[in-house]
């Protein structure tokens, strides 16, 4: 079955998921992002690539952070940006998802950045829009968050260079995490030999080993000698759904403290997609410590999104 992300020429038409993309495509995006890091470091942070193009941020699930980074990225490419918080408006009036998309397409959009609470929403939209429109998945349910996976990949490449020699641990609520799934696909695609997920049984999804990871329920064992530690955000709803008893017990056994981090390699880096819950999944000492690269992740995130938008717009 043809990959819905690629057009007839095999070029990237949409970015819906890292799964199924060729390694060359990922590398191309990362290399292009490197050039954009240079742009964001200048005084004039804009380039005219997307001038005259309209980027619509369709956020069916509220998120100020992600929406802001996409907005910044689009504006740095000189695009016009329209923000739509559908969570509040037409959706509640009963308009279907595809009707909303059709209405917006009629307003001469060139690119949709979509975030939705349901897995598969971005795929549905991409299969429905006219052929000139590009769809970027900014997060669909538990399924995928490809730009996050790419910026995580970029960050790891920046600090560690060679994926084929790395040991990476992803810690926390893997069950509900689209960030985890996208990063797992990205790292396995780039040939990472030792990929681990760490969490209590209730938060590790069925059959996750088939994605190419080793499962650990013990944080100390899982962190031993890793090069990269990725901490996932724990949402408070998990305590109410009989998945976890309390944030305190979670922090005691799965929270990243200086002592636990010491089990990893001395030059290991600590990543977090944000926003952080200090004292739940990560200690302030670690979050503010020298091994954390959480703020650089944000900077890289803008460059990566600029790269994705430019590549799609040019195809």
């Amino acid at each position, binding site marked *: 079955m043809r990959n819905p992300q690629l057009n007839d020429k095999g070029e990237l038409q949409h970015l819906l998921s890292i799964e199924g993309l060729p390694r060359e495509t990922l590398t191309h995006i990362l*290399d292009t992002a490197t*050039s954009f890091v*240079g742009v964001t470091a200048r005084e004039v942070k804009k*380039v*005219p690539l997307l001038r005259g193009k309209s980027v619509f941020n369709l956020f069916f699930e509220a998120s100020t952070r992600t929406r802001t980074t996409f907005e910044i990225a689009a504006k740095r490419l000189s695009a016009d940006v329209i923000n739509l918080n559908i969570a509040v408006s037409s959706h509640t009036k009963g308009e279907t998802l595809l009707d909303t998309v059709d209405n917006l397409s009629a307003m001469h959009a060139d690119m949709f950045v979509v975030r939705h609470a349901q897995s598969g929403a971005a795929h549905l939209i991409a299969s429905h829009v006219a052929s000139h429109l590009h769809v970027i998945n900014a997060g669909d349910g538990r399924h995928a968050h490809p730009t996050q996976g790419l910026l995580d990949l970029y960050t790891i490449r920046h600090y560690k260079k060679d994926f084929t020699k790395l040991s990476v641990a992803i810690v926390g609520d893997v069950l509900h995490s689209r960030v985890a799934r996208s990063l797992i696909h990205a790292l396995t695609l780039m040939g990472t030999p030792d990929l681990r997920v760490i969490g209590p049984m209730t938060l590790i999804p069925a059959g996750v080993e088939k994605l190419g990871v080793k499962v650990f329920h013990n944080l100390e064992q899982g962190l031993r000698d890793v090069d990269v530690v990725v901490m996932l955000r724990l949402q408070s709803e998990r305590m109410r759904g009989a998945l976890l008893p309390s944030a305190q017990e979670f922090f005691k056994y799965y929270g990243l403290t200086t002592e636990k981090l010491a089990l990893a390699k001395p030059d290991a880096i600590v990543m977090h997609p944000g926003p952080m819950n200090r004292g739940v999944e990560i200690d302030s000492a670690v979050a503010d410590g020298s091994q954390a690269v959480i703020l650089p992740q944000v900077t890289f995130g803008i460059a990566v999104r600029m790269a994705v938008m430019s*590549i799609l*717009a*040019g195809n």
Partner: protein
Amino acid sequence: MTLVLPDPEALCAGLVQQLKPRVTADTALVGIHTGGVWLAERLHTALDIALPLGLLDISFYRDDFDKTGLHPQIKPTQIPFEVDGRHIVLVDDVLYTGRTVRGAMNELFDYGRPASISLAVLIDRGGRELPVAAQYVGAQLEVPTDRMLVLDRDENGKLRLKLDA
């Protein structure tokens, strides 16, 4: 009729002679990737330019983005000096339609306001589509419109000219 290509090494030497009287301690040289950078490196050394060499990739400033998309290989842009108030010599291998130079100038202006920009090229092949002119020209050459003239470099760094389809 086969086209006889001039010797780029000789042309380079000729450019050095043209530029020598104009170069001061504050002159900046900026090469346009990729052929312009190779030429600029040679000029930079031969003219003993004080300021470090600037490198420009114009991928983000091209006017044909909608047609051809983003170039698969983007080289780094480095402008290691203040552009404000600077006399800049822009260097490229072949001057043709003038669109590359237009993009380069737009990009330079995003770094600051230069005092002046002059253009040095190895070959001016005519066929301008924009009002762009080079102040320093190695040679003028008429090239058939269906061919591409490119500068190349061998393993020893010696410059070569190639005619591509």
